[in-house]
């Protein structure tokens, strides 16, 4: 072993607590769907979905950083793994979602009924 490992069992349980609480909040919001979140949009997506996505990324951060022990790796390894994924995923989502919305408009405004 090149480096000395201190036991971080307390931190593991703390992260488990955080993940559990966040999941509980997500499920609670998913069942209740409060109107002031569900009916109000920000950047053409409702606030509830924004909350879900932000909480998901929050959970992903804790899983990768604490459970996969990314926080203990060199910053060069961190960037090698995380940067390509973030860049490519945003790129892919941008193209696919914009295109899908375009196709939706085409179907909607078409003179031909396609689903009736």
């Amino acid at each position, binding site marked *: 072993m090149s480096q000395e490992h201190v036991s971080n069992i307390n931190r593991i349980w703390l992260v488990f607590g955080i993940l559990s609480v966040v999941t509980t909040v997500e499920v609670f919001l998913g069942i209740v769907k409060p109107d002031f979140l569900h009916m109000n949009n920000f950047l053409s997506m409702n606030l509830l979905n924004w909350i879900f996505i932000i909480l998901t990324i929050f959970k992903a951060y804790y899983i990768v950083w604490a*459970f996969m022990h990314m926080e203990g790796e060199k910053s060069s390894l961190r960037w090698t793994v995380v940067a390509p994924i973030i860049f490519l995923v945003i790129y892919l989502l941008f193209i696919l979602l914009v295109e899908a919305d375009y196709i939706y408009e085409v179907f909607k405004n078409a003179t031909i009924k396609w689903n009736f």
Partner: protein
Amino acid sequence: MGSTVTTANSDEKTWGGGNQPLGADYGKLMMWFFIVSDALTFSGFLAAYGFSRFKFIDTWPLADEVFTHFPFMHGVSAPMYYVALMTFILIFSSVTMVLAVDAGHHLNKSKVAFYMFLTIIGGLIFVGSQAWEWKNFIHGEYGAIETKGGSLLQFVDKTGKRVKLEDFAATLPEDREHLDRSKGRWFMEEGTLPTYSVAEVQAGFKAHPELLIRTEVLYKDDAAAKQDTKVDHVLSKHKHKTVLTRAESEARLLNAAYVVEGANLVRNEYGSKLFADFFFFITGFHGFHVFSGVIINIIIFFNVLIGTYEKRRSYEMVEKVGLYWHFVDLVWVFVFTFFYLV
């Protein structure tokens, strides 16, 4: 030992493999790179799901109306609870995995074995839960009608509650023979026939004047939509499926082409055809990852038991398989959000 774990210090020659620019052993680094590529694969799937959903944003099924089952609570609508339970199971198995890795750092063989065992159990419970979820999804609950135009019609009562086909479909003295290999010519056969024929559903609908039809279209509660006389504006709620008036329901039902029960890769009773395809594909691919993760965990578990890593004085293999296991958990966090919540 040298082939799986590099314990060389930096004194060794640069080209001899002793140099670690990223500070991780070869095996661990490759596991990270595999995870990157696998993460991109799942991103592709979820982005494709997003594409189809945005394309059919007006008619996409609502997840909390589809996944409503909970074990031993038959007939009770419990959206989200079961999948939340599955999420907790997977997160907890991630915790036991990371505890196993932690015990490995202290070369505590019995603790590693114990936590690995718990992780395997958690993984098996998760795969089993997913099988149960698939069973419910495939079997369906209410049944629906597909029109000639490819859209889906579901049935509700006066209060807007869903009604099962079996609760109203008539029994007609008709005989539709199932075509199988023994009767057909030249490898002709067909899938299982639905319980009811289109005519039986139509006759049953006519005999029950309190029933209405619910379309796939999400209702928008604005002035323009209120003008539509074909829609029941009392039962239709904003951002929920549109319920039609009785007259329009009868007119729509004349266009019926198929009786849809449950789900398969061609059509499903929940709505958009792509919905079931993506459900099977994405949760199936994830389930396959969990399954292979369990298999790898079992292999490592036995290696721990027979003392392979004890002899190596390094439990890094547990760490590597741990990375994979956490990744499976990570993917589930995203699948959970985009399939069940958003």
